[in-house]
C-alpha cells in the first residue's frame, strides 16, 4: 500500500534536487550533449569540411547492404583489427599493471629505511605526461641509438639491433611496456591506500596462527582489498580502452598497432569523415559501458554470495 508522503518530505526532496542540479547541468553540458551529438552524427554522412547540412543515412555508417555487397564499419577489417588491438592492449597492460602495481604497493606498505623517498620515486612515471613518456620510450627503444638495444647487445642477449616500435611482433609490446611503466603507480597508490586501511592485528593473528605469507595474501589481503582493486581495474580498463597518445606517438598510424582511438582520429581528421568517426566513437562508448556493467555485475554477484553464506 502506498501512503502519501508527509509534507516536510516534499521540502526535503526539493532541497535534494536543488543540490544535485548544478552537477546534473554540468554533466548534461559536458557529457550528455557531446554524446548525443556524436550519436546523431554517427547516423549522418557529415564531413569535417562541411558540418552545415549533413543528411540522415540511418545505420549505414555501421552496416550497409547495397544489393550485392556489405559495407560499413562492422565489415571493415581495419576496424576489427583496431578493436582486437585495443582489447588485447587493455587485457595485457591492465593485468601487468595490477600485478606490478600491487607488488609495489605491498613493498611500499612495509616499513623500511627510505620508504618515503621510495614512495615519491615510484610515483614519478605517473606524473610524466603520456606523450613525454612515449617519446622517452621511443628514444630508448630506438633501433640505432636506443639504450635498450645497446644494453642488450653489450650483455650479448641480441646480436643485431631490433626495431622494437616498428616490428609487428614487438610494436604492441613496446606500447604495453611504456603504458605499464607510466600507470602502474596509479594502481600502486590506490592499493597502498587500501592496504593501509587493513588492521595490523589481523596480520598478527595470522602470524600467531602460523599462516604462510602466500596464504595470508590470498586469503586475507586480497579479499579485503578487492573493492579497491575492482575500482582500480575499472578505472585502468576504461583508460586503456581509449588509449591514444602512446600509440600515436610511438607508432603513428601503423594498422598493426592501431587502437580504436587512433582509428577514430584517422577517420575524423585524416579522412574528414565525421559520420564513420562518430559511429566508431559510439561503438567505443558501448564497449566501455559493457566493461563497466560486467565489472559491476561480477562485483554485485560476489557481494550477494558473501551475504548469503
Amino acid at each position, binding site marked *: 500500500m502506498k501512503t502519501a508522503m508527509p509534507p516536510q518530505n516534499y521540502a526535503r526532496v526539493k532541497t535534494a534536487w536543488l543540490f544535485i542540479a548544478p552537477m546534473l547541468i554540468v554533466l548534461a553540458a559536458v557529457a550528455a550533449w557531446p554524446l548525443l551529438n556524436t550519436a546523431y552524427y554517427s547516423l549522418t554522412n557529415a564531413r569535417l569540411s562541411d558540418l552545415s547540412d549533413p543528411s540522415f543515412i540511418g545505420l549505414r555508417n555501421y552496416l550497409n547492404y547495397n544489393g550485392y555487397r556489405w559495407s560499413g564499419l562492422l565489415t571493415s577489417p581495419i576496424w576489427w583489427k583496431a578493436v582486437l588491438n585495443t582489447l588485447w592492449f587493455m587485457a595485457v597492460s591492465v593485468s601487468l599493471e595490477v600485478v606490478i602495481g600491487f607488488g609495489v604497493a605491498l613493498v611500499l606498505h612495509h616499513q623500511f629505511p627510505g620508504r618515503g623517498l621510495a614512495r615519491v620515486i615510484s610515483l614519478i612515471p605517473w606524473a610524466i605526461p603520456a606523450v613525454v613518456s612515449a617519446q622517452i620510450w621511443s628514444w630508448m627503444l630506438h633501433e640505432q641509438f636506443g639504450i635498450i638495444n645497446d644494453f642488450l647487445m653489450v650483455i650479448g642477449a641480441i646480436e643485431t639491433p631490433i626495431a622494437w616500435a616498428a616490428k609487428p611482433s614487438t610494436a604492441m609490446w613496446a606500447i604495453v611496456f611504456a603504458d605499464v611503466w607510466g600507470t602502474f603507480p596509479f594502481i600502486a597508490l590506490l592499493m597502498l591506500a587500501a592496504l593501509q586501511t587493513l588492521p595490523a*592485528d*589481523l596480520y*598478527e*593473528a*595470522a*602470524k*600467531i596462527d*602460523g599462516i*604462510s605469507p602466500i596464504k595470508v595474501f590470498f586469503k586475507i589481503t586480497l579479499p579485503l582489498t578487492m573493492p579497491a582493486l575492482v575500482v582500480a581495474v575499472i578505472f585502468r580498463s576504461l583508460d586503456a580502452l581509449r588509449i591514444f597518445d602512446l600509440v600515436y606517438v610511438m607508432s603513428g598510424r601503423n594498422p598493426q598497432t592501431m587502437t580504436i582511438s587512433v582509428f577514430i582520429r584517422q577517420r575524423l581528421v585524416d579522412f574528414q569523415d565525421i559520420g564513420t568517426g562518430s559511429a566508431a566513437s559510439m561503438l567505443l562508448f558501448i564497449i566501455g559501458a559493457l566493461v563497466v556493467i560486467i565489472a559491476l555485475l561480477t562485483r554485485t554477484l560476489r557481494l550477494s554470495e558473501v551475504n548469503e*553464506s
Partner: protein
Amino acid sequence: MVNLSIRNLVKQFGQYQALNGINIEIDHGELVVLVGPSGCGKSTLLRIISGLEGFDGGELLFDGAQVVTKPPKERGIALVFQSYALYPHMTVFQNMAFGLSNSRFSKADIRSRVSKVARSLALEGLLDRLPKQLSGGQRQRVAIGRAIVREPKVFLFDEPLSNLDAALRSQMRLEIAKLHQQLSTTMVYVTHDQAEAMTLADKIVVMNKGSVEQIGRPLDLYKKPVNLFVATFLGSPRMNILEGVVSELRPDGVTLDFAGISKLVPISGEAVKQGDRVLVGLRPEDVTVGEGVGISAKVEIVEEMGDHHLTYLSSISGQSIVVKGAGTSPNVVGDTLSAVLDPSRCHYFDSRTELALPVLS
C-alpha cells in the same frame, strides 16, 4: 602445560627503554595477570612472550628451553587480541578453522574440533555468521574459541574485555575463570583493570614504567604492598594517602603527627628517625566514621551504592579521605565528624623512596 621463565628481559624502542630487566617465573597451569597503567610495558611483554615482538636482552624460556628464535606458531601459544582481530570476510567457522587449515588436521577433524569448541562457548548457532553480524560479547567468544581450537600450551590475553560494556565484562570475566579451571592451561593475562587482576589471577604481576613492582597472590599484594605504587594501584576506591611526620621514637613504635592528630603507630623505630616524613595509607574499608578520637573532617559527597556507600571527607588540614561503609550512609553532606582509624591496619611508606616501612608485629 608449560612453565615460563622471564629473566632480565630488556626491550628497547629506539632510545626508549620499554622493559628494563623483567624477572617473572610462571608455573605451569598458572593464570598470571600482568597489570599496570597504560604505557607500563605489560602489552609489550605479552607480545614478546607471543613471539610477535623480539627483545634486546635477557632470556625467555618455555619449560627451560630458549624460544627466542621460534616463530609464534612453534611456541604453542594462542593470543586473544583486545580488538578480537577476527577476519571480517570469514564466517565464525572459517575464523576458528583458519589456524588449523595449515597443519596436519583433516577436514573432518577440523570440523569436529571447531564444533566441539563452538558448543562449549555457545557459538553453535553462529558458525555461519560473519563477525559484523555478531555482538561484542559474541565476537569476544569467537576470538577465545579461535584460540582454544588450536589447543595451545600457553594462552595469552591482551586486555580481552576492555571493549565490552560493564555488565558483559564481569560475565566474560567469569567465563574466562571457568575456562581456566576446565583447561588448566598456563595463561598470561594483560589488563589495566585492577578488579580483573584481583578476581582472575593466581598470581599478579604489578608493572610500572617498564619494571616489575611486585609479584604475588592477589590478597598478599592487597594486604602487603611493597611500595606506594602497588598500594594505590590495587583496590577501588584507591587507598587514602596522608602525609605525616615522625615526632617521637618509642620502643613500641613511633609517634606520628598527621592530619591534625598524633598517633602511636607500629613502625619499627630502626627504619626512621625523628622528623622523617612518612606516608600513611589506609584503605577506605579500614576507616570508620563516627564518634571517637579520630581525624576531624567534613563530609563533602556521599555516594550510595545500595549494598555499600562511599563518603568523601575533607580533613581540617585539607586532605581528602574516602570511607567505605556497609549499607546506607547515616552521614549528611556538610556534617563534621571524625574518621577513626586503626594504626595496625594502616600501611606506612617512606615519603622519599615510597617503599613500605617495616612494621612491628
